[in-house]
């Protein structure tokens, strides 16, 4: 199962972190730090795989992908195929965030969560077809947009009343 998905920038700041087993905040930060510590010491042109036993317990693997200023990191156990997971990062994120930059992620934080929820579900891969993922995400944004436009008027009214 996939234990965690993280997006960390090259400064070590998390931009997205989702853990599929509950962990306390301190533990999460510690893991993010140690993952970053390992990643930033790796050279270019080496494999995308790491053993993460020392960070995440026995039998955990870590697959990462370096895009511009961001590391996309998946942590999982031996029940998953490494290359397939790597492929998952590449295939979907390539399409969803073509030429992605860090600011996009910061400003589209909620969108990123939505997309991630369409890809990974409770530690299991939900969907691998980027077309399907994009379809689901677009559906959600449409819903959001439509309900926002409706609420716009009453919201201001209710805001007035409250004052």
């Amino acid at each position, binding site marked *: 199962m996939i234990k965690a998905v993280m997006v960390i920038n090259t400064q070590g700041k998390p931009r997205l972190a989702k853990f599929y087993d509950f962990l306390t905040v301190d533990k999460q930060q510690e893991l993010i730090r140690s993952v970053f510590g390992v990643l930033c010491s790796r050279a270019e042109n080496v494999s995308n795989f790491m053993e993460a036993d020392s960070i995440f317990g026995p039998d955990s693997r870590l697959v990462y992908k370096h895009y511009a200023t961001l590391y996309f990191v998946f942590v999982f156990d031996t029940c998953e195929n490494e290359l*397939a997971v790597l492929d998952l990062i590449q295939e979907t994120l390539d399409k969803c965030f073509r030429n992605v930059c860090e600011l996009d992620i910061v400003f589209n934080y909620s969108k990123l969560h939505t997309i991630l929820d369409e890809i990974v579900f409770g530690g299991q891969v939900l969907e691998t077809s980027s077309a399907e993922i994009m379809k689901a995400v677009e559906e959600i944004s449409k819903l959001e947009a439509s309900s926002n436009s409706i609420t716009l008027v009453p919201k201001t009214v209710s805001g007035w009343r409250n004052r």
Partner: protein
Amino acid sequence: MKRLGRAVVMEIFCFLKQGLTPYEKKKYVWKMLYIYMLGYDVDFGHMEAVSLISAPKYPEKQVGYIVTSSLLNENHDFLRLAINTVRNDIIGRNETFQCLALTMVGNIGGREFAESLAADVQKLLISSSCRPLVRKKAALCLLRLYRKNPDVVNIDGWVDRMAQLLDERDIGVLTSSMSLLVALVSNNHEAYWSCLPKCVKVLERLARNQDIPQEYTYYGIPSPWLQVKAMRALQYFPTIEDPNCRRSLFEVLQRILMGTDVVKNVNKNNAAHAVLFEALALVMHLDAEKEMMSQCVALLGKFIAVREPNIRYLGLENMTRMLMVTDVQDSIKRHQAQIITSLKDPDISIRRRALDLLYGMCDISNAKDIVEELLQYLSTADFAMREELSLKAAILAEKFAPDLSWYVDVILQLIDKAGDFVSDDIWFRVVQFVTNNEDLQPYAAAKAREYLDKPAIHETMVKVSAYLLGEFSHLLARRPGCSPKEIFIIIHEKLPTVSTSTIPILLSTYAKILMHTQPPDPELQNQIWTIFNKYESCIDAEIQQRAVEYFALSRKGAAVMDILAEMPKFPERQSALIKKAEVAEVDSADQSAIKLRAQQQTSNALVVTDQHSANGPPPTVPAVGPLTLVKVPSTSGNAEHTSEGQALTQPNGTLTKIDPQTPSEDLLGDLLGPLAIEGPPGAAVQPQQNAVSEVGGVPSAVDGAAIVPVGEYSNSVQPIGNINERFYALCLKDSGVLYEDPYIQIGIKAEWRAQHGHLVLFLGNKNTSPLDSVQALVLPPAHLKMELSLVPETIPPRAQVQCPLEVLNLRPSRDVAVLDFSYKFGANMVNVKLRLPAVLNKFLQPISVSAEEFFPQWRSLSGPPLKLQEVVRGVRPLPLTEMANLFNSFRLMICPGLDPNPNNLVASTTFYSESTRAMLCLIRIETDPADRTQLRMTVASGDPMLTFELKEFMKEQLVSIPTAPHGPTAPPTPPVAQVAQPTSPVKALTDPGAMLAGLL
């Protein structure tokens, strides 16, 4: 940045206090999640997040679900508030809401969700009217719930449904269902046989690219992820019997093996190879024909030489797995040169894989080459790997040494090159070998002497050479530069450079050199005596003691020759190094296919000197070659033991201190222990004391409740760890290890619900041969009804069996159930009696009671026998907060604020049993700040027996804190005097009315 973060937190906090529009609420809850990710513990907006779940509009609901699933854990109380809304969303008609709810349930996956929602989720999954979007989520949601609570999937009813799901056309749903199948099959493959042909069908469909929509085709590869998952699922079935099925599967596999090539496009490469590597794993699992296997090895050999690092990595890894397959080792060996090159890869991940592979493929034929390669690499290896490297080199050298002198060479080189990374175990082992092999002794001593000539040597080298020369330098006496005096001088040169842990070894060496110098050399004698004199006032007790004793002994002259004679041979045993290398099995819920397989195949590489209990007949020693140690009759050790063991002046007493029946676990004890004086024989060996006396030091004669005495060990197998401590730990928690010895581990996992308990015993065979005549009998006390399911008579090698045990509590009592467990290993019959942690406090449920509820209750339970009071003395002094923690751990809820006196504690709990049903218990503890060793305890409940038992139980806990060490550190004043007679608990009471007045 940090300040900014805090400011935002405060801002949000303020905003949340006021009434907000849904839109603003949504905005701030998102911000909260962001801040949470940055590492701020947001413990305030949880309620807001949860309340958004029930918002009618999609955007609010969405943020509510997403944020709740990130912030809260499965046991959070707020989740209970939401459970109804979640359920309504799941069974409702709105698909987007269904998706949101499923996502949250799947991400949190709590027990309570599992119980209340699993049925609805199943319905969604098999419903034909739902869209694939919902159904695939339902599949994974069910998987998550199943992980939390396997009972949610009823195997009988589900198998057919599962098989039907695999006929699904939609690839998305099929992928999710396949993941679900993998989890189900990994736990119970037998039930799902009918799914096997379906998996093969799915693979065929994918391989032929039939009916695969374009969006699931990735660079021309039909849904690689689904292919991988399907092959993964197949690896959980032991074999495929149906010949047709097997044939068509092999056709598919052959196609994958042949049709994949390394191409330019990275993405295509990854996807194709993901499938390929999974196919390789499946081929290995199925024990395909030899032809196909060698084809696989050839492919892997190609991969470990390609440029793409990911593929090199996986190639090496899979080659390591390939070692498990019989008959291919030779074809793997052909790639040895390439693998050794990979040791120098720039990527540490790849280097580690290469090291693992080299370690795994090493045998007698290539050990020399590989170990020499490793030694060479050691000097350039980076620090992160040196320790592992040196350990592996040492183990290989020991296991596959063509001759022993080579082994000594390797270890000495190892210490020379990477002294910092050579653990003590390694040099202890070499000393053992040399001591046990007379032919080797002159050689080893000469080698050690050579290393001492080097200008700067590592301290470990000083230790080992000093030890070897002290023992065997007299064998070299005729050689040039090896006279006792010269040896003494060269060793003594190192003395100023070493730490205090090495000095005792050097002192022993001096004493031995002196003894071996015949006729005595007065000059040398004086020199050494001066050194002894100097260290007689050393601050380190060990050094001082040795100096004094050696001095006294050496003055006695020839009379003490025996004491300083060479060490006798060490009892033969399994190498501590090899033991260290055997990875501890972790029982994970999700067993990986590879691991299962590794367990089935008895480790063909490890455990060479398979030495078990020393007094049993040695098991047939596998053909290890020259390394098998000379077996020492254990009686010889014993004889010396008794003759010399008496005298106090036996500082250099021989190794005989080791009880021949209990091969000590650590080598350090063997090697250094005998040099120092040990306690009287036998004192240290029997850790198992009478359990009765350990329960709080309350003597059983006075203690009314019969605590079942736990039997002594009638056998030679020593438990690992303290059984009592394990028991006490399990009294406080619900899962852990109950018992462990070198052959078996008994774990326990318990769930307690009111008066019912559901325990599972995990019996794990740690060995590579089966355990026979396994018997487990539960001896329940009168108040517990226990039912243990059938325990198999044989536990296969490296397997774990689970035996559920149902418990029903009839009435309050402190009696403890005992598990009478026995098994046979080889000729050893082992029998242990273990207390089961089905104790009184497991049937308690903490409950908080407000002042309005507490006082009427307290008053209505006016006196004995419903309310009992006692002054307890001899309490282990504890700060009040710690005592409160202790109570909490026994599931007594501390109710702060009920008692105005800060020195008092009030606690409440509910006790469940058949006779009492749910019964409220109230407890009040009054401590004396001036004297922490005494306190007054009042216990009240609606049942006289419960009141009494609970009071006695708490007394036991307070008088002896179970986590504290027992034995000599037991409380100084045993509370014998205060223990009330069980027949008349009334006596101990004082006026309850006055107490109550004080409380109010």
